[in-house]
């Protein structure tokens, strides 16, 4: 049949029943589109943002603490008002959201790669390797992730002189969140690997003499990816919250290049003087972002991996 031969990879992908269930669930689509919008806003922040908040020439200190454009005393060019240093709040939030998403992605990637690698090795090798890796994961899971992240970040900073804290803050945050996250991935992939390991196709691969690493890479890994994708989405939401929390506590991204959490911390200091917008808009953005990602993860789980609770 000429038709089937011509079918491209893309249209085969779109014909998939999982894609069908995704496009036919209004909630999943809405969450997906909302998440996509946040990513676009982050990606194109330098183009969309009316001001560049990091360019001293564009920041007027005397324009500081202005309310949103529609409120009394607001200026039309600052749609959502300005922060304490006179930066346009909308622009600062766009750049801040970009930073939050970037840190979240990097942290999840770190946790995912580390956790999946260890989980697959653990499940595939079994025996003592398995016991050691899973014990470490158990030990870490005794303590909630956010506390682990605060501690790793805090101790990481302790090793460095204070003057370098701001410069390296972002890396510490990424590493802290990523390291606090890996046991979840290790657990799920280990379970999935142990199921796959005993299936016939893996045994067949063994019989024809493929080396272990090739079996893991080509045969086992693709089959545990579904769980990993779902978990990554849900972890991404948690990572964004963790980053915001660390920054809010003053242990994360510094206020020279603020993330959403940093902006909320700054806004919180001005809450009592009635400057509600500096805290409100970043908080709203953060909550909407996390909510969309959570909803997307929830729906993806229903579609891709119903077993995962």
């Amino acid at each position, binding site marked *: 049949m000429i038709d089937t031969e011509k079918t491209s990879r893309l249209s085969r992908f779109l014909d998939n029943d999982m894609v069908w269930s995704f496009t036919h669930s209004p909630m999943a689509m809405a969450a997906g589109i909302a998440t996509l919008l946040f990513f676009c806003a982050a990606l194109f922040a330098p183009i969309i943002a009316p001001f560049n908040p990091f360019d001293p020439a564009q920041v007027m200190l005397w324009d500081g603490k202005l309310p949103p454009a529609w409120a009394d005393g607001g200026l039309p060019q600052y749609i959502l008002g300005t922060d304490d240093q006179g930066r346009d709040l909308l622009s600062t939030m766009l750049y801040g959201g970009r930073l939050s998403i970037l840190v979240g992605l990097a942290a999840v990637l770190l946790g995912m790669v580390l956790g999946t690698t260890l989980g697959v090795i653990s499940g595939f090798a079994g025996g003592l390797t398995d016991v050691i890796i899973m*014990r470490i994961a158990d030990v870490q899971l*005794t*303590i909630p992730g956010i506390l682990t992240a605060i501690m790793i970040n805090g101790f990481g900073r*302790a090793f460095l002189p204070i003057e370098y804290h701001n410069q390296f803050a972002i890396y510490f945050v990424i590493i802290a969140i990523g390291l606090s996250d890996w046991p979840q991935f290790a657990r799920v992939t280990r379970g999935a690997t142990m199921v796959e390991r005993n299936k016939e196709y893996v045994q067949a691969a063994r019989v024809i003499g493929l080396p272990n690493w090739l079996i893991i890479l080509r045969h086992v890994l693709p089959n545990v990816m579904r769980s990993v994708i779902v978990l990554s989405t849900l972890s991404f939401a948690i990572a964004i919250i963790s980053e915001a929390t660390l920054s809010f*506590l003053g242990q994360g991204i510094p206020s020279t290049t603020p993330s959403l959490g940093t902006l909320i911390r700054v806004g919180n200091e001005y*809450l009592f003087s009635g400057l509600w917008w500096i805290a409100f808009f970043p908080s709203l953005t953060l*909550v909407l972002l996390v909510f969309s990602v959570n909803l997307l993860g929830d729906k993806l789980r229903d579609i891709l991996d119903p077993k995962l609770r």
Partner: protein
Amino acid sequence: MRYLFGRLMQVGLVMIVVSFVSFSMFNFVGDPLSSLLPEDATAADADRMRDALGLNDSVMTQYGRFMANAVQGNFGISYRLKQPVTELIASRLPATLELVAVSAVIAIVVGVTAGVFCGIRPKSWASKTILSSSLAGVSLPTFVMGIALIYIFAVTLKWLPSSGRGGTVDLGVWKTSLLTVDGWRSILLPAITLSLFQTTMILRLVRAEMLEVMRADYIKFARARGLTDRAINFGHALRNTLVPVTTVIGMNIGGLIAFSVITETVFQWPGTGLMFIQAVGFVDIPVMAAYLLFVAGLFVLISLTVDLLYFLIDPRIRLS
């Protein structure tokens, strides 16, 4: 028994790992000599000091000494507050424990009640509202919730205080704020903030478990026997959801302690969490190390207690 033994091994492992991390903090971060020696000290002085402090001993000997001190509750003196760390933690602990206790009560009462309601009447509009707002609750970071409550109830309405513990009553070793009206007014906002996340978790779990149990045969038989709805819902259904619910509540109390760090910072609540965050800001290593060890001990204690509770709640576990 074998299970319990395995658990104890794991507990031991957790404590050893954590104490080693805590010890490394103490020994390898910064140079303890720089803060102890006079400015005009010679290299020979430094060597003598190093000897006197035992810094030339092997790592294992030093670790042993650290543990011996830790067991006796000696963690050194806070760099920032110039106060023994143990004293510091002891004076801050009541505030944290009271906050966690009040939040736990709120989370359990509200979570179980709402969960049972949603489980019994899954189709009513009230259950659907509760359930969808609970997903929003999961997405609301603790500190955002805290700021929102402060803005509404403290800044705008001026009903409740925004920070501190209010009046306290000294009961000898324990300073409580639960005996004054002022104290109750102060604890309300932080406790609600802290309990929100746990409430939604408990709610969703109780609901799911109730839905599951309500389909069981023994519920149908109980109906056929003509028992009242109340006896069925609470005597039979809720009782059978208790094992998973206890696990989650146990784990969540751990979560409450973790998130108390954040809530205490938002509300400037003078507990151990706020102490820890301030210590991190000042790189006050003795406080950081002691807090780490203390929290790990607390978590281990909670998870052991939960395990033992199973034996009490479910006779089937005792047999297997």
